């Protein structure tokens, strides 16, 4: 954890150890580790001289933060309005069924995390799914099943 905390310190130094930097620091730390390790929260609390409860309250308030480690690839299913009316629920059902995960959960081997998002701004090609940063547009349950099959095959290889 020593090395990890060094990264946290660097992020804090970059933004300045001020209360108003809290969210920006946490966003960068969350991005760095893919989640917020407990040690990093303690470190932020200490260096910003604020109660740890305040850091936790921000960490649990915003959707972006995760207190648990997340998988190497994140599957984001857009459930925004445009995607919803064009069939996002069916896509999400498919992923849930095929991966055996609920949104927010990670496969045991830490390969995949399933999450939903409220809109990725590609509404024109709804419904949209983002897998490991790659956007797939005009999805159908069929296409979704294919993509998951491909990911699983990749994993096995």
């Amino acid at each position, binding site marked *: 954890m020593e090395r990890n905390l060094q990264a946290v310190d660097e992020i804090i130094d970059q933004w300045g150890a001020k*209360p108003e930097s809290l*969210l920006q620091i946490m966003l960068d730390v969350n991005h760095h580790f893919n989640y917020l390790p407990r040690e990093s929260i303690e470190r932020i609390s200490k260096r910003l001289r604020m109660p740890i409860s*305040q850091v936790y309250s921000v960490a649990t308030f*915003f959707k972006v933060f995760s207190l648990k480690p997340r998988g190497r690839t994140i599957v984001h299913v857009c459930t925004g309005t445009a995607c919803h*009316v064009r069939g996002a629920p069916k896509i999400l059902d498919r992923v849930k*069924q095929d991966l055996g995960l609920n949104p927010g959960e990670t496969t045991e081997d830490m390969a995949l995390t399933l999450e939903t998002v409220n809109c990725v701004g590609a*509404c*024109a090609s709804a419904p949209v799914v983002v897998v490991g940063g790659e956007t797939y547009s005009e999805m*159908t349950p069929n296409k979704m099943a294919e993509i998951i099959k491909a990911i699983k095959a990749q994993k096995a290889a």
Partner: protein
Amino acid sequence: MERLKSIQDLDGLRQRIIEKRKELRKRIRVCTGTGCHSQGSRRLVDAFQQELESRGLTREYMVIPTGCNGFCACGPIVVIEPEEVFYQRVKPEQVRAIVERSVVGDEIIEELLYVDPTTGERIVHEFEIPFFAKQKRLVFKDTGSNYVTDIEDYIARGGYSALAKVLSGMKPEEVIDEVKRSGLRGRGGGGFPTGVKWESCRRAHGDIKYVMCNADEGDPGAYMDRSLLEGNPHQVLEGMIIGAYAIGAVEGYIYVRFEYPMAVKNAEWAIKQAKDYGLLGENIMGTPFGLDMHVNRGGGAFICGESTALMASLEGKVGEPRGKHIHTVEKGLWGRPSNLNNVETWANVPLIINNGGDWYASMGTERSKGTKIFSLVGKINNTGLVEVAMGTPLRTIIYDIGGGIPEGKRFKAVQTGGPSGGCIPERLIDLPVDFEKLKEAGSMMGSGGMIVMDEATCMVDVARYFLNFLVEESCGKCIPCRVGVKRMHELVTDMCEGRARPGDLERLEELCHAIQETALCGLGKSAPNPVLSTIQYFRDEYEAHIYDKRCPAKICKALITYVIDPDKCTGCGLCRIKCPEGAVIGAKKECHCIDEELCVRCGICMENCKFGAIYIE
């Protein structure tokens, strides 16, 4: 790069930029907005660049990555200037041919042109396409043609001339007057008169005042704010600098949701450039006026778009709103006078200063002036961002610009105003769209999302969708919203899942009114809107769910079954192979059928049947 030392310097700089560009014969605009980007348009930019470099043509021709062109349905889009030849759905392997024939040559590549679906005609130029021809593009005019990360491109088109005009002798009060005369109202949802807000903030006591830009855009399905900030950040920045001057602010913040990394990047980039050119920082254009500007990322909470929650979040606290009895223009960020406006509101300001408040007020309706950008999405052919004068009838937007509903289905309703808005039914298709008319119809303007729904959209399901969204996004500070919206969600879920009892609809309505009256902030107060408006216009659909356990649009899974039509089934067996649940039974070449117990209603069988033999009952 040169730093402007006086206001007069701006004209000289503009002349030099234009002079420099005279060598350019053509510009190739490649849309890198989110829609086109998701279809791989970045690769197009690289491919064009390589192609030009390998031919040694980079002096005469230039590739420019632009913000969203607006016609996202046709992405990735490439437009060749000066003629404005419009190519749609362009792939990297077509780049060479485009350079060869249409950039170096003057040929038109027919296959890449847009085909007007009503006439079947191929259209060559961007401005002739009906989607564009029926719009009034002012604020969004340059987003799709602007070189996103180049301040010089903005300056060449007359950028920062409004700021120059303001700084060369307009008093702050005169600026405020101009904005008041324009009738501009906030584009973030509330529609509050911008000039009046500025005036209160100017009058508020305090040495340190702030200007802020709300780019939190939490409304799912709306992406105009992001597109503006990503595609034309200097226009937003110029508006903010003018506002800061008028109000007497010394510092500014742009609050962008973290999910918009490109908007964050481009805004930061624009701030840096503006500082380098002496358009931000101390002594702007050599005058005593100075302004500092920062970008702050939000954590993806819908409530943080609300003004007081946004400011709490900027202070490093949890983004919870507070009661509205203290105005943020007097006591906002750190208890100091703060003026928050939406991205689109700010982007309007340079236009108003350049052309005058009266010019602006000549457009629109009596109480809603100017234009509004809408994101036209959902069950509509021409999805994209459209800008029209306030008061434009819904019919023009849906049919003339939007090109109607796909697959010959019937238009049912359009949802506006996001989770705080409502659904406007087909019978109000001639409604002129402005702040008042939308409100009268039981919806609201919101930030400008327009989600089109067809006959295959279930309105009870839509209500449930928004309630689910609001349950998740409620910050939990007040009880009516924390508990009440959850109860509403339970009631509507019961309806969708066939458990509703008689009287539930009345209970739901009662809850709606109670929450409207007692919730603390705008989120809770307006949470009942999507429910009330769907009950108002589609009561029969609710009743079908409750009393007949039937979903007329055939969406609610618990109320439908998948059935195979024996007359159409050829027994090909594809559905049996594809069904992930093994729910289809039948022998080869014999009629198949679906086991209702095993079926999870995923619809994969229906998607795969080539004979249209599967239907929903």
